[in-house]
């Protein structure tokens, strides 16, 4: 029996789908916050969600800070933009809507941003962790290794099993440098400290991150650290199993670990974004590659948890001052890798330029870098 004529269910389906499309379009539309006549429109695009408790939230909070400090600035902000052609299209539309400063807040936005920048020389672009510049595109990032060294020190003071677990997305050079720095920091206070690394192969798979964290805790680790987009899963698993955790990217993640939180390395992009916006407004903006350190106001050590004794906090602060003063260098030789090969000779010091080529894990780190 064939039904003829308009079918009720079919009509219903069309209704549901069009409703969903409307909802999606409305939600996808950018949020504009209007204040007086704007002196500058800033566009920012995020790869993920601005409430991820991690990488994206750190950028979003930076923009909030800029809005509070400079109320005359209007913001066009969009989340969940895939890297590639979509990003280019979104940036193009931001330019059409009057944006004169665009923050392309994901690593993979670099090439799309360079393309759009070439077409619009009057618009300024900023890209975090980029390795290319253009006359109207600057980059900004910071040395995270010093910070991870300090976190490692705190972990080395807190651990009882002398073991940390590190959940890392991919074995890329800068991440390996972070893991090594963490481990060297821990070994500076606990010579038998061991860091075990698991690579999940992806930046966002909470199910796999939970399994990886459990595997590391099963190996006796009592401190967990991570380099994935959202630290929430690993921090929560650690807390449930009574282990300590060290966060990354965003300070707010400590609410997930009221007992086991040690501290974290976090980006506080606000002051930097204020400087970018001001520079564009008074015409002093110039294309440069900004590379900060623990001395910068935008790379911060998150507040320490209640479990951390004051003596540890003091020791970490003293080391931070020694780094700023230049007396303490993280990658000062001799350093061997975990196969016994000397990677940094006696008297040699690795610097920021060397981290991009790092393909080894330090002695005492359990893990395969390749």
């Amino acid at each position: 029996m064939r039904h003829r004529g308009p079918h009720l269910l079919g009509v219903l389906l069309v209704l549901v789908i069009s409703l969903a499309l409307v909802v999606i379009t409305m939600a996808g539309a950018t949020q504009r916050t209007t204040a007086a006549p704007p002196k500058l429109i800033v566009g920012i695009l995020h790869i993920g969600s601005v409430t991820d408790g991690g990488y994206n939230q750190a950028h979003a909070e930076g923009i909030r800070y800029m809005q509070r400090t400079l109320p005359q600035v209007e913001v066009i902000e969009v989340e969940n933009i895939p890297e590639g052609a979509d990003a280019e299209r979104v940036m193009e539309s931001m330019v059409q809507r009057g944006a004169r400063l665009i923050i392309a807040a994901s690593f993979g936005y670099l090439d799309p941003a360079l393309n759009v920048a070439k077409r619009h020389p009057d618009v300024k672009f900023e890209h975090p962790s980029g390795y290319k510049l253009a006359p109207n595109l600057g980059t900004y990032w910071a040395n995270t290794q010093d910070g991870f060294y300090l976190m490692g020190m705190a972990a080395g003071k807190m651990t009882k099993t002398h073991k940390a677990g590190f959940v890392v997305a991919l074995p890329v050079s800068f991440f390996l440098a972070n893991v090594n720095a963490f481990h060297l920091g821990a070994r500076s206070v606990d010579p038998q400290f061991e860091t075990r690394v698991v690579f999940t192969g992806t930046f966002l798979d909470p199910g796999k991150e939970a399994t990886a964290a459990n595997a590391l805790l099963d190996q006796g680790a009592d401190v967990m650290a991570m380099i994935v987009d959202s630290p929430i899963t690993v921090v929560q698993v650690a807390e449930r199993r009574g282990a300590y955790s060290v966060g990354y990217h965003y300070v707010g993640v400590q609410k997930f670990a009221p007992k086991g939180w040690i501290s974290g390395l976090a980006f506080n992009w606000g002051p930097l974004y204020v400087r970018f916006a001001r520079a564009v407004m008074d015409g002093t903006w110039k294309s440069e590659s900004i590379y900060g350190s623990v001395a910068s106001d935008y790379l911060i050590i998150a507040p320490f948890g209640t479990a951390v004794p004051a003596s540890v906090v003091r020791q970490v602060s003293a080391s931070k001052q020694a780094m700023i003063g230049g007396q303490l260098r993280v990658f000062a030789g001799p350093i061997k890798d975990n196969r016994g090969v000397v990677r940094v000779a006696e008297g040699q010091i690795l610097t920021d330029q060397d981290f991009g080529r790092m393909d080894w894990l330090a002695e005492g780190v359990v893990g395969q870098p390749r």
Partner: protein
Amino acid sequence: MSVPFLESVLLGAILSGTPLLYAALGEVIEERAGIVNLGLEGVMLMGAVTSFAITVQTGSAALGVLAGATAGSLFNLILALLVVTRRANQLASGLALMFFGVGLSALLGAPYIGSRIAGLNPLEIPTLAHLPYLGALFRSDILVYLAMPAAALVWWGLFRTRWGLSLRAVGENPTAAYAAGYSPRAIQYQALFIAGLFGGIAGAELSIGIAKTWAEWMTAGRGFIAVALVIFSRWHPLRTVWGAVLFGGAVALQLQLQARGASVSPFLLDTLPYLLSLGVVLIWAGGRHHAAPASLGRVFEGTE
């Protein structure tokens, strides 16, 4: 302090395998009724996001599971509308359903990212929880305990009830089933509704059981792996248990090997679950008896 290797791998296998098992059970029911659902990924995501949101709102993980299952089945009815009522192509409709689920769940879940929940807590079974090697199994959440009974229930439903017989008849030959007095469309609707429940529960286990967080596309391909597991287990609900445990176990094993410092490249280890599945399919593929429902994927045009 450290947990023995076997126990750790076993627990990891159960943990990674449970969402896969629920999803695969749902897919078995659908495919036995003649419908391939490539939108399972989207169904799981709808279950995951709904259960997380409801758990945040009400604080009750039980309500969360219930809501997730309901959302999964309602969402799956969209597929029923497309392929049963409108007789659309099953593969295309399934893929459309997947993308719709990915987008809609991301939209619905956005306000809940970063929320904190207690989620499904482990229920410790006295004495059993302290067994050597197996102890960790008895400190799992309720959905883990119910997974294998669920497989048995699906087996019983499909192979020991009249309804199951009619469902399988529709999957083999809908025209004959119609001639025998069954309504293929009604049965396919029922199959998709129940399959959606399972898909929704699979998502709930992932978001409020394992990860206790919501992230966009957090299923990360598990829906497709579940579809493959159904083929792997040759459309039999009890064999899906082995498939899910094997695949989940391979994931757990590779992470565990890394944590123990095995000297194998992490890239190679990451392919281990897929290599293992390929190997098993290769070995099993020789069987003469191919169990795919005869009318799987075909559009029932009616009997005019």
